[in-house]
């Protein structure tokens, strides 16, 4: 029952929301009764009621067997009839009557100055009150919706932004009040083997939220592109929401580091959605993201960067939006990669939008300035559920993708770029020198050993020679003693004074020998 628009007007106006009213009417699904009241034509004379309205509604309900009734808007009634006492009584009766008819009624009313409704009655007689609001904050207009009351339900009490566009009304509340989404154990590669290695050796969890933050030009988009490339190579579908660059620009730029995003796009595995963040409010962006994801069914979604998106709404709004965004992907087990620009001067581990606590893996990219160079470094600030590396590594953009290098850590801190190369060269030289010194000493030691051994051998030879000499002289002496003894015996024999007693000579000689030996030793 329309009080403000005629049926053709209504049909025309809601066509832009994607409703085909004429078709519904033709199909007997919808009946529109336009109520037109001209207060100037009406003279009130005594007691009356709104039975006519009831009868019209009743016949309209019967015509199509309606289950739902919309009355838009009650204000017109109040504007048309002067007797508020009757109106209030009749409204009360109307709500009762609609309930008795078993139809769900949607009744619109204007908001009062301080009260929920202008006449302070409607909210008490209805079962559910939904408050709609359109506010402008920081030049961005956002429609919001809040369920003020809903009898017999534990409804969400918060205010939620909503959107009206060509597919009707979209409300995107936090879908799951409880944090009970699935947690996949499946791990996926980031496309950079050495980064996977830093992330517990296997990469990130499927369905997790990854934040890549860093200052300008640290390679956030490149890292995102590398991940997308890796996912597409595995045959997975990806959606890339770009809020800074056009898709063509990203494809061109990524080609310079050997990543061809054009190929998966042609294969239908990758979809780019490049939009200006200021084009619409956060809510519209969120809806756009939801729809793209629902239509395309990706396993990986990149939002590059979220910081720009945040600028199209207030910070608090952005935070709420991101929470819902993350929630949306979490419940669907879609891996989400967010990039975030850290502005110069801000703490590097702070994000413009305070999302850091809700994300699972946070990869930080930063500049390291030293000896007239700026080099990129990467580290994993946090990664839930895995033993991630605590190292800072150098992040290189090469002709074929991203490479990570172990960072040189020396007495002067860590070195990157040419300083690292110079240091490496210096180290190599030092190492060589050291090695040469060592081998020199080794050689000297061997030489000394050889010398000593030669000396020892000479002494031994001398000693042996001496011993031999002595032995010989002893033998000579013994022989001489024997000869003397036998000469004496021979002489005695000759004289016949002595009997030859063999064996007595030898013990003497032996005794002599022993005595000599004792002297020697």
């Amino acid at each position, binding site marked *: 029952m329309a009080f403000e628009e005629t049926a053709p007007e209504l049909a025309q106006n809601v066509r832009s929301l994607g409703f085909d009213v004429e078709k519904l009417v033709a199909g007997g699904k919808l009946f529109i009764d336009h109520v037109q009241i001209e207060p100037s034509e009406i*003279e009130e004379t*005594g007691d009356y009621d709104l039975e006519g309205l009831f009868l019209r509604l009743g016949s309209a309900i019967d015509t199509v067997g309606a289950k739902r009734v919309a009355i838009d808007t009650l204000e017109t009634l109040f504007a048309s009839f002067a007797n508020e006492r009757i109106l209030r009584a009749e409204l009360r009766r109307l709500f009762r009557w609609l309930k008795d008819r078993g139809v769900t009624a949607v009744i619109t009313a204007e908001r009062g100055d301080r009260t929920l409704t202008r006449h302070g009655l409607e909210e008490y007689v209805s079962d559910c009150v939904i408050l709609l609001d359109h506010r402008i904050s920081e030049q961005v207009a956002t429609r919001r919706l809040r369920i003020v009351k809903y009898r017999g339900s534990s409804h969400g009490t918060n205010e939620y932004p909503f959107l009206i566009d060509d597919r009707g009304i979209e409300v995107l509340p936090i879908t799951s009040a409880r944090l009970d989404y699935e947690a996949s154990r499946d791990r996926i590669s980031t496309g950079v083997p050495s980064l996977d290695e830093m992330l517990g050796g296997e990469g990130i969890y499927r369905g997790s939220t990854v934040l890549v933050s860093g200052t300008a030009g640290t390679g956030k988009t490149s890292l995102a592109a590398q991940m997308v490339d890796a996912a597409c190579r595995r045959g997975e579908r990806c959606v890339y929401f770009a809020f800074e660059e056009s898709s063509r620009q990203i494809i061109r730029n990524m080609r310079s580091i050997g990543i061809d995003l054009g190929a998966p796009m042609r294969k239908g595995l990758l979809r780019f959605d490049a939009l200006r963040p200021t084009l619409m409010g956060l809510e519209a962006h969120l809806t756009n993201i939801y729809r793209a994801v629902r239509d395309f069914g990706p396993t990986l979604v990149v939002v590059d960067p979220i910081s720009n998106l945040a600028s199209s709404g207030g910070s608090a709004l952005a935070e709420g939006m991101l929470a819902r965004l993350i929630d949306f992907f979490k419940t669907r087990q879609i891996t989400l990669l967010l990039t975030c620009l850290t502005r110069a001067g801000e703490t590097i581990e702070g994000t413009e939008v305070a999302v850091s606590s809700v994300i699972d893996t946070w990869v930080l990219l930063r500049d390291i300035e030293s000896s007239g160079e700026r080099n990129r470094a990467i580290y994993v600030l946090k990664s839930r559920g895995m033993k991630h590396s605590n190292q800072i590594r150098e992040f290189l953009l090469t002709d074929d993708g991203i490479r990570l290098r172990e960072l040189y850590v020396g007495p002067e801190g860590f070195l990157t770029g040419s300083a690292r190369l110079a240091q490496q060269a210096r180290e190599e030289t030092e190492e060589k020198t050291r090695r040469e010194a060592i081998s020199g000493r080794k050689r000297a030691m061997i030489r000394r050993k050889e010398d000593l051994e030669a000396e020892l051998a000479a002494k031994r030879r001398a000693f042996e020679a001496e011993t031999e000499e002595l032995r010989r002289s002893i033998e000579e002496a013994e022989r001489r003693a024997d000869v003397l003894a036998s000469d004496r015996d021979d002489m005695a024999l000759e004289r016949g004074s002595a009997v030859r007693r063999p064996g007595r000579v030898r013990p003497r000689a032996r005794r002599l020998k022993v005595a000599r030996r004792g002297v020697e030793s």
Partner: protein
Amino acid sequence: MSAAKSERRDQAVSELWTLRLYVAGQTPRSLVALANLKQLCEQYLAKRYTIEVVDLVQNPQLARGDQILAIPTLVRKLPVPMRKIIGDLSDTDRVLVGLDLRPRS
């Protein structure tokens, strides 16, 4: 009171009046309204009027034609312009004003 408007009212008075009273069933209020109307017409429009009573309980779709919400509603179909008077017509002064039979004070 302008001369033109006065003339028109005089003319209206001399014309044949077609009145339609919308009611919903034989409620006491409807009966009161009909009685008040008949009395009023006899007094001001003797023999120059026809009254048609439409019971919306029997023909609810007729309510749409004349955009009826309140019951009872008296509609002056002729003379033009159309006039609508709601209520049980107990306030005779206002009914006469509503029917252009008496100038607005």
